[in-house]
């Protein structure tokens, strides 16, 4: 919305502006601001673009209560020192309303600040409300004022206090609709406060409420999931412990299908997350199986969406795992690196990503090849010959690949021991029992069309007309 004029005015070489546009469209107004701010701080930014962004920021915040900042932006946009009276008037209004709100809500906030009262509250909301009503004269209207005030604070950019107010409101209110809106508001507040743990809590709450409250309205579920997926990007890449949980969340059948349906661009983040997860998983030393599964899922999804969405990151995945085109993968890795560096969310994890991606390339390369020219491999990994050699040595050491360097010929020789038939059998046996037979019956939205047949086969007999 805000940036659309910005993108139109300029050439958009890597398609990144457009990408940003897509993301922004699904974000909360206040969440867009950091994104724009990040854009503004790019080193190679042109004047024109800077101006566009400033206008965008101005328009973005125009409707909020952050009047001072908006006035500053106005000055910047119009290149003048005088501020129209409009802003000062609005400022007065905002202050006035703030005062009124404070007055109105003072009673209930005081009550809630009183430990004696709070200690008497129980988990039952209705009983609480009744208790407060009987003993302290609290009405529903007063509770709702908390909500309105929280919203107002939020519009002022005072996220911390807004978050508190919304929390208090949520404790008392029985209006499910408003409670869920308050939860969304609180999530944004926590994100903007960079209070990730609390944000994760809110995400969990929202996830549950989407499943339970909206279960008979698929359309609303879809939009809610879409928003959640977008909002959750903030903790996803800024808060380490959240990474694992959120990856799982994104891969869970309802979410992955939402992503595929309405916002395939999230795949970039998902792909980046999966690929970077590799190094961390290795450090933890566990769940390589889970990692393999994630990777497999990722490849499947990317392959399915390739007709609809492409960017360097997904193209990298495609080149490596669908086409087995290592040269292409290498090229895409280069492109992806650049894109990632400039990405608000992924900027910090670029190096980890490149490292992990190289690992993936070499892993799959080694699996397929028996004898590899070091020079060639180094080229593929985008390294000098010497670095390449080091890299391979490290790789052999780290992954315990059965391989030897032939220094004279300048090659690596892989020793792929043939799998014994007995081993194969057993694996098939265990595999068959443990994972295939009891695979959770999760139905993805995008069945292969081939499954049309399977699903209807049984029915077709009935249909003899």
């Amino acid at each position, binding site marked *: 919305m805000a940036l659309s004029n910005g993108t139109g005015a300029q050439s958009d070489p890597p398609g990144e502006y457009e990408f940003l546009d897509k993301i922004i469209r699904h974000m909360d107004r206040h969440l867009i601001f950091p994104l724009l701010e990040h854009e503004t701080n790019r080193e190679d930014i042109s004047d024109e673009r800077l101006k566009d962004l400033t206008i965008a920021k101005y328009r973005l915040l125009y409707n909020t209560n952050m009047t001072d900042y908006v006035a500053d932006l106005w000055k910047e946009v119009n290149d003048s020192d005088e501020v129209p009276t409009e802003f000062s008037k609005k400022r007065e209004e905002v202050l006035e309303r703030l005062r009124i709100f404070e007055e109105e809500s003072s009673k209930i906030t005081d009550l809630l600040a009183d430990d004696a009262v709070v200690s008497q509250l129980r988990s039952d909301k209705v009983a609480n409300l009744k208790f407060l009503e009987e003993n302290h004269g609290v009405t529903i209207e007063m509770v709702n004022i908390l909500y309105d005030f929280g919203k107002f604070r939020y519009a002022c950019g005072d996220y911390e206090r807004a978050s508190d107010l919304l929390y208090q409101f949520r404790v008392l209110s029985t209006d499910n609709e408003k409670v869920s809106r308050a939860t969304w508001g609180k999530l944004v507040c926590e994100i903007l406060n960079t209070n990730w743990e609390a944000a994760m809590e809110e995400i969990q709450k929202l996830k549950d409420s989407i499943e339970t409250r909206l279960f008979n309205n698929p359309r609303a579920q879809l939009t809610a999931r879409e928003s959640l997926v977008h909002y959750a990007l903030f903790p996803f890449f800024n808060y380490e412990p959240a990474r694992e949980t959120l990856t799982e969340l994104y891969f869970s059948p309802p979410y992955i299908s939402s992503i595929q*349906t309405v916002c395939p661009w999230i795949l970039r983040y998902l792909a980046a997350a999966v690929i970077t997860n590799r190094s961390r998983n290795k450090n933890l030393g566990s769940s*390589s*199986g889970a990692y*393999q599964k994630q990777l497999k899922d990722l490849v499947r999804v990317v392959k399915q969406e390739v*007709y*609809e969405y492409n960017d360097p990151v997904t193209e990298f995945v495609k080149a490596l795992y669908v*086409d*087995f*085109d290592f040269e292409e993968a290498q090229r895409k890795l280069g492109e992806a690196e650049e894109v990632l560096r400039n990405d608000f969310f992924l900027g910090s994890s670029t190096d980890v990503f490149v490292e992990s991606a190289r690992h993936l390339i070499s892993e*799959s390369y080694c*699996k*397929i*090849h*028996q*004898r*590899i*020219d070091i020079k*060639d491999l180094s080229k593929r990994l985008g390294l000098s010959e010497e670095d390449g050699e080091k890299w391979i040595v490290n790789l052999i050491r780290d992954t315990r690949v059965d391989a030897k360097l032939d220094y004279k*010929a300048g*090659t690596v020789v*892989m020793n*792929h021991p*043939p*799998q*014994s*038939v*007995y*081993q*194969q*059998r*057993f*694996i098939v*046996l*265990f*595999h*068959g*029992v*443990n*994972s295939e*037979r*009891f695979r*959770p019956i999760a139905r993805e*939205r*995008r*069945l*292969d*069309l*081939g*499954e*049309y*047949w399977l*699903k*209807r*086969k049984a*029915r*077709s007999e*009935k*249909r*003899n*007309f």
Partner: protein
Amino acid sequence: MSSRFFHGGDSDSESSSSEEEELYGVEGKAEDSEEEESSEEESDSEEESSSDDEGGPVGASRFMKDVASSDESDDEDKHTIVKSAKDKRLEELEGTVRLIENKEKINDWAVISTEFDKMNRQVIKIVQSGTIPKLYVKTISDLEDTINETIAKQKTTALKMNASNTKGFNAMKQKIKKNNKDYATEVEKYRADKEAYMESDEEEEAVPVEKVRRNRVQRIDELDAQIDEEGFATVGRGGRTLQYTPESILKHLRTIIESRGKKNTDRGEQIRIMEKLLEVATTPYQKIRVLLTLISTRFDLTSTSTQTYMSQEQWRSAEREFSSLLQILEASSTYVVTENADEWDDDDKAPQPAPNEVFKIPGSIVSSIERLDDELTRSLQQTDPHTAEYIDRLGDEQLLYNDIVRSLIYIENLKKMENVETPPESANRIVMRRLEHIYFKPTQVVTTLEENTWKALPERLQSEITPRGFVKDAAPLVQTLCNFLFQHSEGIIRARAMLCQIYFLALQDDYWRARDLALMSHLTENISTFDISTQILFNRTLVQIGLCAFRAGLCYEAQGVLQEICGSGRQKELLAQGVGMQRYSQVTPEQERLERQRQLPFHMHINLELLECVYLTCSMLLEIPLLAQTGSSPDIRKRIISKTFRRMLEYTERQVFQGPPENTRDHVMQASKALANGEWRKCSELISKIAIWDLLGKDRENVKAMLAAQIQEEGLRTYLFTYAPYYDTLSLTTLSGMFDLSVKKIAAIISKMISHEELGAALDQVNDAIVFRKGVELSRLQSQIVTLSEKAMGILESNEKVLETRTAGMANAYVRNEQRGDRGGGWGGWQRRDERRIGGQAGAARRPGGQQFGGGALGGAIKA
């Protein structure tokens, strides 16, 4: 004009108009006979007519008679009914009286006695509904006189009568005395002044006769010029035609409507009457009413059985009338036609709505247009598609489409009107019809159709859903119509709209969108709950998606989609493109009739030969490498992609002598054999020689190129699968020469195969070669052990399945992978115990394997 002559002399003229005609017919017959005879005959035929016999004169009057008699049973229109019934009874009475008079003259008392009884019965009925008929009074008093006279005569002359006569006479004597007491006053009056008594009667009825007569004279003079039929028929027609005045239109319509659905109604005649009525109709109200009835009568003309259909002439007239109906409705804003309007009962005067008022006329534009559409479809079903007639009828589609669009506009306008409730689905139904006329057509055809339609419609008509000039292209049109239906409709129409859109997208080579829509619609899950024609549409859509995938070069997807339809061997039946031969099931005539009814007209067909060709080619590309793969390593489960293809292949292989390929199937089969032998060039050549590809039009060359590329790849794969056991190493350059592919491409294909563990090999980058691993193949003993272990697994599985059904719903207890971590939670203990017991040794062996799946430590131990 002889009728006038007869009429003038006859006393029956007082009867109502419908009766008149009947009498003319009768009198015309009796023209030459003598007075007495004629009266006798008349009475006879009248008796006949009262019992509705076939003895009536010609078709037209017979029909009118029906109307009259049927009226008796109808309460709605008391006025006319009572009158005609009464008249009829009077006539009967007259007949009887005449008979009695005749018999009096010859002293046949036996007959007189029976006739007298009959007359009394008739009179009772008449008396119930009015006064005592004078004729009756006259008869009984005359009869009494005669009896008295006869008694006197008998005494004087001692004339003997025969036995039956005497008996009748005596009975009469007593009866007449008794009877006449009841009518004493009337009889007295009559006796007092015979002439005057009968006169008063005459005068009363003379007036209307005069009027009718005058009227008739005028009318006939007018019509003389128009009617050039001759003789007798002219009389009948002339007599009737003069009733077609603007005032009487509604009455005529009423009778026609009432006769609807009855046996023995001559609809052709009704249509002719209505056509005449339409000519004389002056007000919009009359015109609308006549047209509504006329159109529905035209539809009644053809029974709903499969074999008959509306003739083109009839259809065109119906179409013409329908469009003029719309024209009238568009012009007059006062009258609207809706389904839920009340009948206007007063036939004598038309409703006079106030200028701003809206008057509703019962009727259904939607049903009419639907019927019109169905009739065209039916006639197309019955016509041989290879004749000029078919093309000719197909041309009528434009007219029909015009009407559809026009009625859609009408319905839209109705919706905008206040205080007119239109059922919401009427617009949906019309939009659906419109959609069904375009969804399967190429874009150019749709564009032309649309353009012509808008040209044909008057300038001021404007549609809201699809404004004039809005549609330059078919795609947005289909999109708009579908969106409209998605928003406003539900259930079957919605599903059909969805299918139409998917079909259209697939036709436009938009595979991804078509597929996404197909998957998101979730129609696969509940299509079996829809009616059969929707299921057929679903099958058509499925096939179209398959063909689209094929054109896009996605053979795997194409095969998967087409499998169900083509693999069944009942393509014809499933697509409603011909009645399939069923070997094992018996089809009742009823089923066969229904099936014939469902057939699609030829111009909607999907070419079955092309379909089969696409299906077989795709199957070949998938099956041949698979066969090669399973051939070399027996441990892969015998997976079958297409049974149909396998069967055909086996059949071809069994043949001793192989002739040159003749049909499509031969081509594909021989190509398959060539591919299996690694001769991809021959395979490619055979495939590209198939003539049916020509139907793909401009895509033909692309498809052939795509197929050639796929054949190269699959040829390579097949070759590798088949000959891997015989090689240690294989140079990529050699392969590149053999399959005419670049080294890079070959490396990519092989990498994929290795990575998916289809091929036990590795690439040697330095020498550009594949190194095959040895010891991958199993010895005979090993492969048998593999089979054994598979069977054991099977037993285990079925065992657990049994358990699962026993513990219905608790199957989650077996998600061991997840549960291993937290054994504490959840399910009841006994199941798990059970599971261990059943799992037994297998369970014990499985656990370490499950935990160390990735590592393969167990495998290592065994190796060591």
